[in-house]
């Protein structure tokens, strides 16, 4: 440990202004602060001590919270593959997970390589420290796309999203839209056939490095998500085990979104550590449930209110996307309104729009736009209270 510290201290001058490796300063700085807590002490004219919390720690806990959903998602990919190939009997638990791991790993690598590459370049160019926000975004993106998404599409979407949704606004903390959802939206509208298509995107049909199975029957591959099916045919034709499978997560869907249990584990960690706001998270579920109940009560849909919460990306979006503090409402009261409206819009899109079976992505992006307006209303109340006080005297 000490040796590493000494080594870093020795090579550090090379990366500073005028050093021969100055072009890689942001990279060096990123790795150094990753290995060691920065030793910068507080400047004159400031608080002398600081809480140990920093954005690295917060982002790390977001990533840890995503792990159950990611690991289960890998297993589910293997499971869906074996199910489609009709070889569920032969497949082992570990084998199915391994297949899923091999299917997802390249996506994570591509997402990180492209996104972090841009982040490092921009940080170096602007003489800033690397911002760790993309570490969470980079793992979220592969989790909200179908397993069959081609890597090049992913790379294009990641690059476009990081540049257009984040860097041009000034980086993490200044962006208006959630960059992970922007990446998904770019994929969704640019390559619709690869994202929902004829429902042939949700199951991986080719074996990878000897793991998994080749699915020969094209029919077997066309496993629509339960939500997609419900949107087309109503829930009538669907058997009752669906809801149980949706809770455990053994249904076709985007990589990380299927298992309610795995998402609940992540939610518990985020709420316990206070990284995510319980106000936003709870309100999304309440808004979705209330709207779902209303829609069913007036006879617009046969989907039960609780099925809305369990199926599709609703829970994943509520836990990991809506709670993004940068793009969400920042006032405490505003968080309730913001969450309720996300739930409302998501279910509205699902029920009223014949084109899209899923509405969560659009709901959150839509509400990202309105979050500043919600905050404005709350802050304005404070301002008028102050103005009134001045008049009264």
């Amino acid at each position, binding site marked *: 440990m000490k040796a590493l510290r000494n080594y870093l201290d020795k090579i550090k001058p090379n990366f500073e202004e005028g050093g021969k490796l100055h072009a890689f300063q942001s990279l060096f700085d990123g790795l150094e602060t990753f290995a060691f807590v920065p030793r910068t002490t507080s400047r004159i004219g400031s608080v002398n001590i*600081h809480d140990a919390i920093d954005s690295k720690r917060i982002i790390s806990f977001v990533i840890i919270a995503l792990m159950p959903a990611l690991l289960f998602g890998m297993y589910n990919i293997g499971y869906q593959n074996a199910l489609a190939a009709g070889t569920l009997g032969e497949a082992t638990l570990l084998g199915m997970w391994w297949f899923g791991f091999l299917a997802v790993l390249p996506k994570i690598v591509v997402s990180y390589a492209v996104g972090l590459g841009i982040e490092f370049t921009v940080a170096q160019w602007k003489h800033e420290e690397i911002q760790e926000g993309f570490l969470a975004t980079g793992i979220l993106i592969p989790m909200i796309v179908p397993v069959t998404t081609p890597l090049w599409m992913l790379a294009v979407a990641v690059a476009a999203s990081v540049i257009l949704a984040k860097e041009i606004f000034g980086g993490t903390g200044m962006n208006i839209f959630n960059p992970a959802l922007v990446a998904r939206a770019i994929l969704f509208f640019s390559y619709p056939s690869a994202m929902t298509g004829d429902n042939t995107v949700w199951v991986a049909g080719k074996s990878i490095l000897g793991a998994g199975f080749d699915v020969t029957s094209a029919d077997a591959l066309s496993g629509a998500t339960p939500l997609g099916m419900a949107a087309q045919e109503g829930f009538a034709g669907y058997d009752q085990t669906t809801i149980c499978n949706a809770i455990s997560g053994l249904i076709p869907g985007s990589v990380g979104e299927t298992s309610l249990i795995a998402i609940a584990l992540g939610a518990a960690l985020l709420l316990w550590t206070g990284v995510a706001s319980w106000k936003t998270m709870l309100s999304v579920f309440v808004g979705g449930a209330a709207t779902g109940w209303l829609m069913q009560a007036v006879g617009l849909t046969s989907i039960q209110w609780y099925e809305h919460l369990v199926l599709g990306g609703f829970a994943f979006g509520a836990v990991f996307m809506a709670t993004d503090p940068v793009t969400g409402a920042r006032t405490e009261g505003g968080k309730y309104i913001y969450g309720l409206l996300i739930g409302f819009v998501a279910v509205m899109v699902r029920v009223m729009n014949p084109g899209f079976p899923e509405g969560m992505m659009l709901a959150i992006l839509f509400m990202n736009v309105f979050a500043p307006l919600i905050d404005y209303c709350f802050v304005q109340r404070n301002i008028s209270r102050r103005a009134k006080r001045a008049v009264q005297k």
Partner: protein
Amino acid sequence: MAKVIKLRKGLDVRLKGKAVPEVAAAVKAADEFVLVPDDFVGLKPRVVVKEGDSVRAGDALFVDKLHPEVKFVSPVSGTVSLVERGERRKLLSVRVKPDGSGAAREFDTKGDVKALLLESGLFGFFRSRPYDVTANPEDKPKAIFVSAFNSMPLAQDFEVALKGQETEFQAGIDALAQLAPVYLGISAQQTSSALTVAKQCEVNVFDGPAPAGNVGVQINHVWPINKGEVVWTLGAEEVIFVGRLMKTGRVNLERTIAVAGSEVKKPCYVKAFVGQKIDSLLEGQIDTEKHLRIINGNVMTGLKTSTDGFLAAHATEINVIPEGDDNAEMLGWIMPRFNEFSTSRSYFSWLLGKKREYVLDARVKGGERHMIMSGEYDKVFPMDIYAGFLVKAIIAGDIDRQEQLGIYEVAPEDFAIAEFVDSSKLELQRIVREGLDILRKENE
């Protein structure tokens, strides 16, 4: 009975090395005293002595260039040893070598209180809101606020300083009451009758975590400042200065300061004068081999200094903590880090209970980022103000917005706890100070 105002928001950071509430035996006599104009925020000084002049305690060393009646006086009798100037001849400090004679200028306490305070240099200790700057004698304040407690970690316990000075304190309040209505804020833990039943003022009891002791927080809850209004504030110990002057006719700037912090061998209270050289206060108290941070004032608000520094004009404590720049802590983003205090449960120090006292060093412990998390400041900002939005308005330089959001009610110190908990590591006190300075320039 005084009104009790309960505050929920805030944070008490428990640091090791709290001063034992006893006054230690006399410390080594200091060989130099200093008055630093920068300690009086917003002041443009004009020096009125030359090197070699002899001065008594209470004789002016420099005055306010714009209001020459506001004087800043020598705490001791002696000889002016140095008039220190910096770039562009900016006055940095005026140093006095004490002669030990104890000669002091005699003031007539019969006349106008304001004129007396101006002449004796005590008016220079008044601060005014908005802007948290040294008070302007032409202003007509709607009230004078005094906070009798400091809720920050390692701060002076005012009741220790008050002991034996109760009548002086009341005499000080009486004098202030002739200028404007006086509001005294005390904490729920304070029992001294000089505070709880102080006369000639309205007493309000504040019950809650830091920064409940900040006078700005108290003003916000008792009688908030609106645009165009002015409130003066004065430190509790400075009220005793006023009381001493009223009783004896002499200026006596002796404080009972807390010498505290994890690196102080025997944390205690000592008697010291404003501007006293710090080495005399820390003699035998610190290990000079270590990387230490000596803080001129409170750990949350004070400036870094050294043993060659001098007790700042408003400082009521000297805190010493480890600097921490020799610390090589690995993988901070994932380790449990039981020794680190955090309000976040992503650290596990909460497992060890709330009673535990921490040794914190001066590291920032993270890189500066844009504001990411929401609501962090509001949790520790017990005023009816959206702290995060106000800080953003200051960063953006939007003056109208700052006014609307209540910048006239805040001082940098009110953001100290918010700066401590901020995960984006923004230097909030500096940002607010700069914002106030710009606003003041625009408005004047």
